[in-house]
């Protein structure tokens, strides 16, 4: 009887988590289940915690959107590393590096997209300088 009760309550918890994930999951363009879970987690953070905290990020896109974009573009591993690096750079002293490491301002914040932080590719601006072109 006890075992049944424990199983029942665990199933209920699992069911509630699944409902939450489904509620906050974006439209079904993503098929990778890990990315779906990660996106759902980011959605939950943005809707519950970030909305209470306000617009405090020093960068554009914000750190949560940076995480979403970097994971969807570059995969879980590199996206997570880029996100961890971004979280450690998102501090008030970041504005000191305007015109040194961050050259653009977008939405009143330092513009720092994922494409400028992927170490295996040169930045698009760098690509413009280095592009091998055809006639």
């Amino acid at each position, binding site marked *: 009887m006890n075992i049944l009760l424990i199983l029942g309550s665990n199933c209920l918890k699992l069911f509630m988590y699944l409902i939450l994930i489904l509620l906050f999951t974006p439209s079904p363009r993503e098929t990778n289940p890990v990315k779906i879970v990660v996106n759902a987690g980011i959605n939950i953070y943005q809707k519950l915690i970030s909305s209470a905290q306000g617009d405090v990020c020093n960068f554009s896109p914000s750190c949560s959107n940076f995480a979403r974009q970097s994971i969807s573009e570059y995969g879980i591993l590199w996206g*997570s*590393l*880029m*996100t*961890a*690096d971004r*979280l*450690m*750079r998102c*501090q008030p*002293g*970041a504005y*000191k*590096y305007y015109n*040194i*490491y961050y050259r653009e301002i977008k939405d009143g914040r330092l513009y720092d997209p994922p494409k*400028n*932080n992927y*170490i295996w590719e*040169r*930045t698009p601006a*760098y690509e*413009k*300088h*280095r*592009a*091998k*072109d*055809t*006639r």
Partner: protein
Amino acid sequence: MTILLIVFQTEMFQPENVLKFAHHLYAEEDFSGALNEYRRYIFIADSVQQEIYERIIDCLIKLERFNEAIKETARIDDIDKRNYTKGWVYFSAGRFDSSRIYLDLVKAPYYISDARRLIGLGYAHQFNFNEASSYILMSFPKPKYKSATLGGLFALFPGGGHFYCGRIEDGIYSFFVVGTASALTYYYYNRKEDLKFGIALGVSILFYAGNIYGGINAVRNYNYYQNLNYLNKVIEVND
């Protein structure tokens, strides 16, 4: 009234007046309008000077319609001028390898110095400063780069990669984040709270790996902006 209208319209659409209007729009930097007027002039004029085609190409470059500008270069009679203009269009489009192909073909003494300058600037834009120095003046010292390997090695100490690149605040913040996560991990390990220890350990590992990644990324960005600053100096001197 109709006769007056026809007379005035005829007066307005005289080729010389269209050309004057086109020049005015060009001087006012309304390149889209100027382009239309120059093309209208070509349509109604009996003969067209080569300068008009050059103006059209210039308008297309300013409007960033580079493929059309390339097509217009076919109307230039002088071969050296055509090659130089094509090279200039490709250079403006950021296609430096293609620009070099045409600029290398320029032989006329009138254009060769400008062609060499553009070739040098093209190499500089591609951060190939060694080649660029053969074509343009670069009398200031070359940029100093940092090593990505060293950046990664320094980053084994939290924040070390950022300190190596002169990003002190980023380094301090990284140190505190990784340090705090590690301290929490140790705290939960001591209290034998396995779940919290596991979560804290995962977060610590993630931030530590992110710190190493950030150290290498900081070096990469440092080198890129060294190149960019040097390029801006080169353009300032040679433009």
